[in-house]
């Protein structure tokens, strides 16, 4: 405990609530309120209804939800595979080369996502690499955008991994591949699931690059929300947003359950 006196504790709580509630909680509560409303002209929303949710869980919206979930799952699995591979390979490199690899992987985060979207669009619009107009270009762009986070969190965990484990395994006669699959990756599992959750959440909310790339038959949920609010359907958009939020949180919760079981100390 950093703060000891009772008064100081209350003061810290007050500051926390003053900052946290308006900044983080209130906007989310507003969306939640709006999603049940038909009008919002006074302080509180009015004309309570569940019609918005009926619209948000069928037809176009349901399909967009499936699209988003599939895109996020695909992108985070790909990102996890690539990021983990790069992190493990980077750990075996000399300091100098490792820096180069790290910098390469941070690049898509450092560059605005609109730029990433544009470059993916330009790069994959001509044969032989014609992906434009297919769902794969969306998944690819999301993968490029989230791999940085997977790489970063896994490589931090790889650095912290005590080499004594792999050395013990090697001295017991385990080949490098056995050491990887039976010792290193299981020990990395907690950070792998954390990285997967992060990638999934980021991909679920990605809009700016997606806007430039999505084909008509592969519309992710954020695009739908943007379109709804753009044409003034704020309350329907809010309901879709709540569905997006709930779906993401549900997946993150499931992943964190896996993580709790995988952390050993």
């Amino acid at each position, binding site marked *: 405990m950093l703060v000891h006196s009772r008064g100081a504790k209350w003061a810290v709580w007050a500051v926390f609530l003053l900052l946290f509630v308006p900044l983080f909680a209130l906007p989310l509560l507003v969306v939640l309120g709006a999603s049940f409303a038909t009008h919002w002209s006074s302080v509180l929303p009015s004309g309570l209804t569940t019609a918005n949710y009926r619209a948000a869980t069928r037809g176009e919206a349901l399909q967009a939800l499936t699209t988003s979930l599939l895109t996020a799952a695909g992108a985070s699995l790909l990102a996890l595979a690539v990021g983990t591979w790069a992190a493990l390979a980077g750990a075996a490199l000399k300091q100098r080369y490792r820096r180069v690899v790290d910098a390469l992987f941070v690049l898509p985060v450092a560059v605005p996502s609109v730029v990433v979207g544009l470059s993916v669009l330009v790069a994959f619009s001509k044969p032989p690499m014609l992906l434009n107009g297919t769902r794969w270009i969306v998944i690819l762009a999301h993968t490029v955008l989230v791999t940085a986070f997977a790489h970063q969190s896994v490589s931090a965990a790889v650095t912290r991994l*005590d080499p004594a484990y792999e*050395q013990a*395994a*090697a001295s017991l006669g*385990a080949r490098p591949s056995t050491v990887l699959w039976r010792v290193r990756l299981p020990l990395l*599992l907690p950070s792998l699931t954390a990285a997967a959750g992060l990638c999934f959440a980021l991909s679920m909310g990605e809009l700016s690059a997606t806007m430039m790339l999505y084909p008509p038959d592969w519309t992710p949920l954020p695009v739908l929300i943007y379109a709804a609010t753009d044409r003034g359907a704020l309350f329907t958009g809010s309901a879709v947003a709540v569905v997006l939020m709930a779906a993401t949180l549900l997946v993150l919760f499931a992943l964190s359950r896996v993580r709790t079981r995988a952390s050993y100390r």
Partner: protein
Amino acid sequence: MGIRFDSVTVAYDGNVVLDQLDLTVEPGEVMALLGPSGSGKTTALRAVAGFVRPVSGRVLLGGRDVTDLPPYRRGIGMVVQQYALFPHMRVDENVAFGLRARKAAKGEIRQRVAEALEMTGMAAYARRHPRELSGGQQQRVAIARALAIRPDVLLLDEPLSALDARLRSGMLSELARLHRELPDVSMLYVTHDQVEALTLADRIAVMDKARLQSCGTPKELYRSPADEFTASFVGGANLVPVTVGSGGVSFAGTELKVDTTGVLAGARATLCVRPHLVGLGEGPNRVVGTVTEIQWRGATHRLYVEVDGHSVMADLRELRNPPALGDAVALHFAPEDAVLLPAGVTHE
């Protein structure tokens, strides 16, 4: 299977951490590598395990050159200070790991895991996870895991350093028992603790500053050390500079009777006497000095006495009337308890 270091040199970025080590561990022998931190002893062990590559020299296991073999093809058991048990596996899975990696048959795995756990007294804990065990139990599992693959060579890297003192002496006798039960296994035992080395080892290799200082049986090193470092590191010693005369030496203007066989008269040498062989009061080979410090250690008193600018330690059975600080006291030792060493840092 024996271990042989053939002029092994290890360097990191031009910094030599092990300098031309020549050492042979006979089959079934327990060799302790004893030295302070940074002496190169752990590097020597890691060169046998295959985790460091010598820049020159060869490492041989049972006559086979393994210098270029990766660790997993050397067939060595290894136990390290921090146990390094796999936290995501149960105790029996940890012990079975090496056998599974070697693709042993299921029935054989079960039998050998049971055997190894039995041998280390951990059979009752087979279904536990490492985090549910105490430090001593974890180290037993680590030993069981290393023994399950039936290695010809067992490397132990400070295996008891993470345990508290009481547990340490218990584990020390356990290790001695294991060695009696497995007389064919050669052990290389790295430690900075001379008690562990003296208790367990058939021979001790004393290392300092990346070099082998001396090597011999515990008794040889203790009774007749060859150099100043060995004398003080193994057992502790009073080392004072003397000049050799005929049939004795002169120290601080006093003539002391010492066996000077093989040393030229007039040469400079270092006189070595173990603190517990120094007596208080009058006797043969007597020197006089001032008490500078008294430590009561229960069964003994340790006196630090300054004699002509040199500090001399005496471990005495608990004194009824210990001298006070600043008192002038006489110390003595028997001529046969002293050893003459070549002059070294004591003369600087």
